[in-house]
C-alpha cells in the first residue's frame, strides 16, 4: 500500500512517499531507500499502539485532529498527516466525472452487522459512512470507497457475515 506522509510542522515539515505492508503482526515501511520493520500491536487503552522497531519499544498514542494526526511518544508530540495517493486520485476523479462503473462493499473480516446507514437510492461519495460492523468486540465503520448511488443493501442489522461477503452494491454516480 502506497502512502504519502507529511511529518512535522513549520521548518521541520517533511514530505515522504511510503510503501507500507502489514503482514502477520508486522509492519514493513519503505521510504527513500530506508526499510523499517516493526512488530505492532494495538493497545486496549485508547488510540494507542505498542511498536517494537529493531527491538526498541515505543508506546505511541494517536489523536486525530482537524489538521491531521498528533502522534505522541516518549513525551514528544509529532504532527503527521498520512494519506493514500489513491484516495486523493479518487477524490479528484469524483469532482471531474462520475465513476464509470459501480462497486461493491465487501466485509473485510467476519463479524456482525450493527447498523446500516444507507438505503437504496442514497447517493454516496468517497468516505460516506455506509455500515457499522462489529468484529473482535470492536465496532468499525465501513465507508464508501468511491462515489455512487446505493443499489442494493444485502444485509441487515444483527446479521453475521463472512469475510469477503458482499454487503452493499453501489451503482455509478448519476
Amino acid at each position, binding site marked *: 500500500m502506497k502512502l504519502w506522509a507529511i511529518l512535522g510542522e513549520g521548518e521541520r515539515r517533511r514530505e515522504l512517499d511510503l510503501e507500507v505492508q502489514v503482514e502477520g*503482526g508486522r509492519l514493513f515501511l519503505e521510504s527513500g531507500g530506508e526499510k*523499517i520493520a516493526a512488530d505492532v500491536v*494495538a493497545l486496549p487503552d485508547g488510540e494507542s499502539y505498542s511498536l517494537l522497531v529493531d527491538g526498541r519499544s515505543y508506546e505511541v498514542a494517536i489523536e486525530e485532529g482537524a489538521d491531521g494526526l498528533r502522534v505522541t511518544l516518549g513525551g514528544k508530540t509529532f504532527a503527521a498527516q498520512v494519506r493514500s495517493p489513491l484516495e486523493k486520485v479518487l477524490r479528484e476523479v469524483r469532482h471531474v466525472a462520475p465513476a464509470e462503473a459501480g462497486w461493491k462493499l465487501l466485509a473485510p473480516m467476519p463479524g456482525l452487522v450493527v447498523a446500516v446507514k444507507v438505503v437504496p437510492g442514497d447517493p454516496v461519495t468517497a468516505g460516506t459512512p455506509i455500515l457499522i460492523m462489529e468484529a473482535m468486540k470492536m465496532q468499525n465503520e465501513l465507508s464508501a470507497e468511491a462515489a455512487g448511488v446505493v443499489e442494493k443493501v444485502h444485509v441487515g442489522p444483527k446479521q453475521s457475515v463472512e469475510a469477503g461477503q458482499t454487503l452493499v452494491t453501489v451503482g455509478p454516480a448519476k
Partner: protein
Amino acid sequence: MAASARSFRRVLVANRGEIAVRVIRTLRDLGMTSIAVYSEADRAALHVLLADEAYPVGPAAASQSYLDVERLLEAARVSRAEAVHPGYGFLSENAGFAAACESAGLVFIGPPASAIRVMGNKLAARELARQVGAPLVPGSPGPVTSLDQARTEAERIGFPILLKAAAGGGGKGMRVLRDAAGLQAAFDLVRGEAKAAFGDDQVYVERYLEHPRHIEAQVLADTSGHVLFLGERECSVQRRHQKVLEETPSPALPAKVRAELGAAACKVAQAAGYRNAGTVEFIVDEKDRFYFLEMNTRLQVEHPVTEMVTGLDLVAEQIRIARGEPLGFDPQDAMPRGAAVECRVYAEDPRRGFLPATGTVARLRWPLGPGVRVDSGIYRGYTVPVHYDPILAKIVSWGRDREQALARMGRALDETILHGVTTNVGFHRWLVRHPVILAGRYDTRFLEEQFRPDVLEGDSDAERAALVAASLHEWQKSRSVALPRRRDGAAWKWAGIEEPR
C-alpha cells in the same frame, strides 16, 4: 489563637485541585472527616470524589465561590465543620478570612490573623524583618502612590528595578524594568493586576538582582511559639516568575549560609508571633548573600520535597498545632535524609510561551515505583476548567542523593502518560537532564537564558517510530477496520490480517 486551639474532627477544606486532595489525604490518615467544597465547575473534580463529604459554594468564578467568605462560612455551618484548612492560594493568606473563621467558631488551620496581616503587607513584613536584623534588598520605604514617586524611588535605588504589588504573590502583579522608559505602562499594569487579583492596588519598588537564586526556608512554629527550621528549598527554576521545579537541599548553598538563613527565618517568624507552618522566602545573590523577600503564611505548593527528606507530614503537623497539641515528632528524628525534587505539572504549552491550556484528560498513567510521589488533582476523563490555576499535579522524587533523585524524576517523567491536555511534562523531561540543572548551578534567569521551544523536538529514532505508528493508524483506517484485538485468554494480540494487494 489560644481560644481557637481545641480539638476538632470535622475539617472543611476551603480549596480545590491537587492541594485539596493533598489535605483530604492527611485528614483520612488521621481518621478525621474531610469536607470538600466545590464550585459549579468542580462538581466532578477529584477533591469532591475523594472527600468524605462535599458541599456547593457557588458559581465557577472563584470570586463567587472559593474566594467568597460568606459562602464558605455557610458551607461550614451546613456541614457542621469544626475547622477550616485553607490550602494555598485563594483565601489562604487572607487575614479577614482567618478572623471570620475564628468569629464563626471555626478553628483556622494556619497562623493567627495578626501574623497573616503583617506578612501580607510587604512593607510591614520588610519593616519587621529589618527590626530582627534580616538582610533586605534595597527598596522603597513604603508604597509608591504615584508615577512620580515611583520614578523618584527607582532612580534612588538604581535600575534594574522590580515593581511589585504589596499584596502580591505567586508571580502575579510584578514587572521588571531595566530603565525608566516603560515605567508608566508598567506602573499602571501592575496596579491594575494587583487590584484585580488581590483587591489592593498598593505597589512598591525594589532593586532587581540580575542573577538571583530563590531559596526559601520551611518553618514550623508550635503552640508555644517555638520555631523550628525544617530545611530550605531551592526554587530558582521559574518561568513567568512562577516556580516550575523545586528541590531540597539547595545544591549550591554552603552549610554556614544555610544555617544563617534558617536562623533568620526563625527570627522573622518569631517576631511576627507566628504559629503553624510557614515559609520565609529569600533571594540569594552570586556571592551567597541572602535577602529577606517575604513570608508565605500558609502551606507552600512545594512542601512535599521537605516532607520527602524529613519524613514529616506537614499538614498533620499543621492540624496538631491548630488543635493545641505538641508537635508529633522529635526534631532529632526529622533530620533530612537524602534529596528531593518536585516538578509542577501545569496545563500549559511550553512551545507557546507557557500559555495555559485546557482540555479533557483522554489518557492518564502516572509514574509509580520506588522514590516517586504524585500529588494530583485530575483523573482520566476529567476536563481541566478554564477558571482556575493551571496546576494539574506535582511529581516528586526522592533519592539518597541529588543524583538519584534527579534520575528517578527523569524516569518518572518518562513513564508519565497524560494525553488530551497540553502540559509541560515534555519540558520537564528536558529540564531534569539539562547539564546546568545536573550541575546544580542555576539561578532564576536559567530558563530565560537556556530554554528555546525547539529543544523539545524529538530525535530521528522517535520520528521514525512516529511515522510507523501514523502509517499503521492510516492503514487501519483505510481498511475501514480497527486493528483487530484478539483475546486469546491472555493479552491483546494483533491477529495479522493479510493486506490485499
